[in-house]
């Protein structure tokens, strides 16, 4: 067959033959020759040597031949720029052809010939074509501007093509509008700060009109462009949404997804109590479900996007669980994505169905899929407490299958279940231990070791089990080594008598024979803890673990917001911002949902305002406009994400005490970390405001359930501090919510001397339990307002108090002068009675009175230029001196 021979052309001699054919007089022969050339080009052969001969065929009125020659030109012009000029004349001539199809063909091809020398000849024909009477030519010319911009951006700007392109947005032909929008959007992307796509209500209106009339592809260009617009207010937002919703019934999935993107974004601006908001939510579900009956590749794109949508607005699809059930013949990539969404949608209402499905999946063939299904069962247990028991028994059934990777995966998730529901399912440990030998993956081994260590006291042969792992310690992965080290230390703390040797062994393995710094450091920490203070070691190693969060693999909220703005695109498929996979200037901008951040969004006029240099003071009109702009965007409830892991809190607590004493008293301290109080976290500070002592607390609920019935009580303390009223927590505290309470205190409670003096032991009760913590208050809050002594009385008292009661301290690095210091101290009811200056040194005599009537007298020496102050305190109760000194330091340095 002739065409087959086109593809099998090989030897170099044939180039010569082709040359002859190309220069033949017969049109048919010429055409066949060009076809052969294109065929060789396609399979990757170099036929650039034929350039002049092929270009010679260009002058023809045979359109098919012309198109073939153009195709050749597009591919080889760059390698033969000088000869490509030969073609220019024909192009320019073709741009004047009476046939619009030929005019368009010429301008389309010229844009594809990426030779600098040609571009300058392109400008005139392009300018004419942009204003051509035929819409087909105009729509082709619009795209050509984008092509030219890609080759020579400066030229496009200088020639004013951008303005012409902008004019085309108002063209009467919808396809011209769509292509102009596409071209402008692309050019704008490489100039993030230009105001190129000047989107305002008028242009938006034009786009929305064109949207109804143009091709499916044009609709996509327009919708994607609309998604970059930020409406001025909720009303505009609603009216755009109303005109975009009909697109949800389009047969083209890309149109649907782009419409979903616009709606998801503009919905942010609608008040939640609006009827329309609810209607819109309802309208979104059916088209998303319909996407799942598309071809598998599109299903995949849709599912990746639904995954994002479900995270952002779970309410849309919460009733649609069934459509995500996996079909036997689904391609594996569809199956895996469906599974992900099933877990996200799992709730108490549908858990029975979900579990039954997951159990089916766990018997399938594809290893990845089965693993994910097993893992999903575990995640269901953690997410829906009521189902935990069923999940565990399902997992046990699966372990019985003895399929290696199923068992391993099951053990990994059972570990998490143990963490979530401690002391509930330990009966299964025996079954798990039976499978110890089959575990060969680090994650499963580590999980198993963790379980053994955690429940060492209930496993009779825990030491043997762990010892068996120890034999190949150095061949294990780091994960397993670390886990083994911790588990053996746990075991030792629980059964110290029998396991001393074992712990010695693991500590020496970890510290002496290992090159891994993490392992070594952890080993040393344990070693020191165990050798210095076993009780402390117990408290640290066997401490209550922080709660694990019920949702896993959640996308970080700011990234999620950005990805929502990219629905339908590759970014939403990869779940990565465009900057992660796109090179160059494109895609560097980060998109935001409207109203969700202080920064104004990157597009439209708002960007212009925010980019204005800060030194220029805007005229009042502008400023007003700007403020209005900001005010009109309704605040959304997207606060910062609640810290989901307990680790963070733990770290804060470790540093808490130390840091706070450095920074000063004003910062609130975490008094009661959530992990010690079943999810209740209390942080707070003390203050004296207008003569009233106050305890200012922030209660945060980091547990899963609502907290109510709060009450507070103090233990007896040095100054008789007691709550002056009940703790005012009026509303129940729901999960992840914080409340600030101010508790007024009095000093008429029972007194007992504490160590240190300013220590306060507090009990807080709620519907869950009673929790205890202790905190230290600054003694300065006890200084009363009438603490200013008469001069004479001061002198007499100073002499009266024996010298033994005097204590001297140094306050270092204080750069205030004496007057400033005096003023500052007075704010804390430390009164300066007299000031003396001796040899450049200021001496301040001060007094203060505690709530229980104890007077403290002070002499503060401030030397100009010396940042170190000296303070002498005299008091009949010298125990308070240390605390008073601390208060001085805190007040002066704050």
């Amino acid at each position, binding site marked *: 067959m002739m065409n087959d021979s086109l593809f099998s052309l090989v030897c170099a001699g044939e180039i010569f033959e082709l040359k002859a054919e190309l220069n033949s007089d017969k049109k048919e022969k010429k055409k066949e020759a060009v076809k052969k050339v294109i065929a060789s080009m396609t399979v990757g052969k170099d036929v650039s040597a034929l350039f002049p001969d092929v270009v010679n065929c260009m002058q023809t009125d045979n359109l098919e031949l012309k198109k073939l020659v153009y195709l050749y030109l597009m591919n080889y012009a760059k390698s033969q720029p000088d000869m490509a000029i030969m073609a220019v004349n024909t192009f320019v001539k073709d741009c004047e052809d009476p046939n619009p199809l030929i005019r368009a063909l010429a301008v389309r091809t010229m844009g594809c010939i990426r030779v600098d020398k040609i571009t300058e000849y392109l400008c005139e024909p392009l300018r004419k074509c942009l204003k051509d009477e035929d819409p087909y030519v105009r729509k082709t010319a619009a795209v050509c501007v984008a092509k030219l911009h890609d080759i020579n951006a400066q030229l496009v700007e200088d020639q004013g093509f951008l303005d012409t392109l902008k004019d085309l947005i108002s063209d009467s032909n919808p396809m011209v509008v769509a292509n102009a929008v596409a071209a402008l959007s692309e050019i704008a992307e490489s100039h993030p700060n230009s105001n190129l796509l000047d989107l305002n209500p008028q242009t938006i209106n034009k786009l929305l009109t064109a949207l109804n009339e143009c*091709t499916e592809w044009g609709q996509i260009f327009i919708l994607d462009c609309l998604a970059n617009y930020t409406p001025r207010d909720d009303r505009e937002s609603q009216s755009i949404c109303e005109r975009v919703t009909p697109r949800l019934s389009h047969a083209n*999935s890309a149109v649907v997804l782009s419409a979903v993107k616009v709606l998801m974004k503009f919905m942010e601006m609608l008040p939640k109590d609006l009827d329309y908001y609810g209607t819109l939510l309802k309208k979104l579900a059916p088209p998303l479900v319909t996407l799942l009956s598309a071809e598998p590749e599109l299903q995949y794109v849709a599912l990746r996007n639904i995954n994002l949508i479900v995270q952002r607005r779970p309410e849309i699809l919460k009733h649609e669980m069934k459509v995500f059930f996996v079909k036997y013949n689904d391609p594996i990539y569809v199956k895996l994505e469906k599974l992900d969404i099933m877990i996200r949608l799992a709730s108490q209402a549908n858990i029975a169905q979900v579990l039954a499905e997951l159990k089916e999946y766990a018997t399938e063939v594809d290893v990845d899929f089965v693993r994910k299904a097993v893992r999903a069962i575990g995640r269901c247990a953690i997410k829906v407490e009521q189902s935990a028991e069923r999940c565990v028994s399902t997992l046990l059934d699966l372990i019985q299958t003895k399929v290696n990777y199923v068992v391993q995966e099951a053990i990994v998730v059972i570990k998490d279940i143990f963490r979530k529901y401690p002391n509930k399912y330990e009966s299964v440990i025996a079954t798990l231990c039976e499978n110890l030998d089959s575990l060969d993956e680090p994650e499963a081994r580590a999980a198993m070791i963790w379980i053994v260590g955690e429940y060492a006291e209930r496993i009779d042969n825990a030491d043997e089990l762990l010892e068996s792992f120890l034999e190949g310690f150095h061949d294990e992965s780091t994960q397993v080594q670390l886990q083994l080290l911790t588990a053996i230390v746990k075991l030792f703390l629980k059964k110290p008598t029998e396991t001393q040797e074992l712990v010695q062994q693991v500590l020496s393995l970890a510290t002496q024979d290992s090159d891994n710094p993490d392992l070594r450091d952890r080993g040393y920490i344990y070693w020191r803890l165990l050798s210095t203070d076993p009780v402390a070691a117990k408290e640290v190693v066997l401490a209550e673990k922080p709660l694990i969060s019920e949702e896993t693999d959640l996308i970080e909220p700011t990234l999620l917001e950005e990805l929502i703005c990219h629905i339908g695109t590759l970014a939403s498929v990869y779940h990565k911002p465009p900057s992660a996979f796109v090179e160059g200037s494109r895609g560097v901008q980060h998109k935001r949902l409207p109203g969700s951040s202080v920064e104004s969004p990157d597009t439209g006029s708002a960007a212009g305002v925010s980019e204005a240099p800060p030194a220029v003071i805007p005229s009042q009109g502008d400023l007003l406009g700007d403020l209005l702009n900001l005010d009109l965007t309704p605040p959304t409830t997207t606060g910062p994400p609640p810290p989901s892991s307990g680790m963070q809190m733990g770290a804060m607590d470790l540093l808490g005490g130390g840091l706070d004493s450095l920074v000063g008293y004003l910062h609130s301290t975490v008094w009661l970390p959530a992990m010690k109080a079943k999810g209740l976290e209390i942080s707070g500070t003390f203050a004296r405001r207008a003569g009233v002592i106050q305890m200012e607390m922030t209660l945060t609920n980091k547990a899963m359930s609502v907290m109510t019935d709060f009450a507070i009580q103090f233990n007896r303390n040095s100054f008789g501090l007691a709550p002056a009223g009940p703790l005012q927590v009026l509303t129940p505290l729901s999960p992840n919510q914080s409340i600030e309470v101010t508790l007024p205190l009095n000093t008429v409670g029972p007194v007992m001397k504490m160590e240190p003096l300013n220590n306060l032991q507090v009990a807080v009760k709620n519907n869950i339990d009673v929790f205890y913590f202790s905190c230290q208050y600054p003694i300065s809050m006890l200084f009363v307002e009438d603490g200013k002594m008469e001069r004479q009385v001061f002198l007499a008292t100073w002499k009266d108090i024996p010298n033994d009661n005097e204590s001297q301290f140094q306050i270092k690095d204080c750069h205030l002068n004496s007057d400033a210091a005096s003023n500052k101290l007075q704010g804390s009811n430390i009164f300066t009675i007299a000031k003396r200056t001796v040899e450049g040194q200021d001496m301040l005599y001060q007094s203060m009175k505690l709530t229980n009537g104890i007077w403290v007298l002070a002499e503060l020496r401030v030397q100009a230029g010396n940042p170190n102050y000296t303070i002498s305190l005299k008091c009949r109760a010298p125990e308070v001196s240390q605390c008073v000194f601390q208060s001085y330091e805190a007040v002066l340095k704050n």
Partner: protein
Amino acid sequence: MIGGLFIYNHKGEVLISRVYRDDIGKTWNPSYTSPPSPSHWNHMRNAVDAFRVNVIHARQQVRSPVTNIARTSFFHVKRSNIWLAAVTKQNVNAAMVFEFLYKMCDVMTAYFGKISEENIKNNFVLIYELLDEILDFGYPQNSETGALKTFITQQGIKGQTKEEQSQITSQVTGQIGWRREGIKYRRNELFLDVLESVNLLMSPQGQVLSAHVSGRVVMKSYLSGMPECKFGMNDKIVIDKQGKGGASDDAGKSGKQSIAIDDCTFHQCVRLSKFDSERSISFIPPDGEYELMRYRTTKDIILPFRVIPLVREVGRTKLEVKVVIKSNFKPSLLAQKIEVRIPTPLNTSGVQVICMKGKAKYKASENAIVWKIKRMAGMKESQISAEIELLPTNDKKKWARPPISMNFEVPFAPSGLKVRYLKVFESKLNYSDHDVIKWVRYIGRSGIYETRC
């Protein structure tokens, strides 16, 4: 946007390659230290090879239809053993790229039939011409076959008059890109096919785990001029609305006769804004065959067949399978092409089958017993029983027990959808709605119709 488009055969040889943008393949080869060759043809080769090596020749099964290799993204679809791949370096609209690839397949099929290596090789000039037209700088342009066929003909367009030329361009860019002016038929005729595929997943105990109907209304129109059409069906929302307005005819009857449509999508000829506001389906149809709408229903589905499986393991080397099928529709109707596929374990050594009706065969190559019945009337029942001998294996893994699947065809719409009317108006030509000959038929087919056992 799309940077390039390649078509490969199953061996990974390139049949068609069209590069729209220079960026693809530019930085693909990190060890590329010498100054890039002036011919971007060579750069492109890198992208071409990257896809062949990483996807077509990949050892394991394809794990995703989108692949990112060295910051270049490849989208692919496969038709028989031909691979179509679109390549890009930008954050393109992924849904659009796939829709375009499917569209590309449709266009090629419309021009030269089946997509095969031979057909592609024989039509490569045509394909290049098409690609030049429907994708400009990576932006999809008008891809309606009806419009394309007016000017991409492989015959040249020499003989066209000026009027004809401007008609072509206005059609390609215009609002009604799917129909040309001046169509004439002696006999105005239209055919409506309601094609439904009913999908079911049932538990062994007979509980419906999921069921839905995905339906299509396919229209073949042979109408003159630019006819304005209006299509009506027993959509619950429309019927209820009318019931409220007019006299409330017997509620019980209309309740049964209308159906709740979960969602529907339309061909681009349908005025979507009108559907959104009035729920009326009005359009100017393309000429010839096209798909007017797609819909999905999940409520009150008539499941034409019920499969009752019974699998019993007798020891380690024998399985006893009994399957009963029951037809559940009017006795006067006949179902056709019934096929029940009962999967068997991989270590099956022999099968004995007894069936009351039709023919059953064990197909070792497909690991299944295939039971075929030519015809079956409604409200009937039939049964098959089989004994499966197994080879003893030491394979620890249990047999996954794939579901029993069924195929059939019934002459009604399992969703209950009924066409109420299709009105044709053509004001300029002198034919009225009554002159149009209309044909409607309903075909219900099995989609994925599975019962777990």
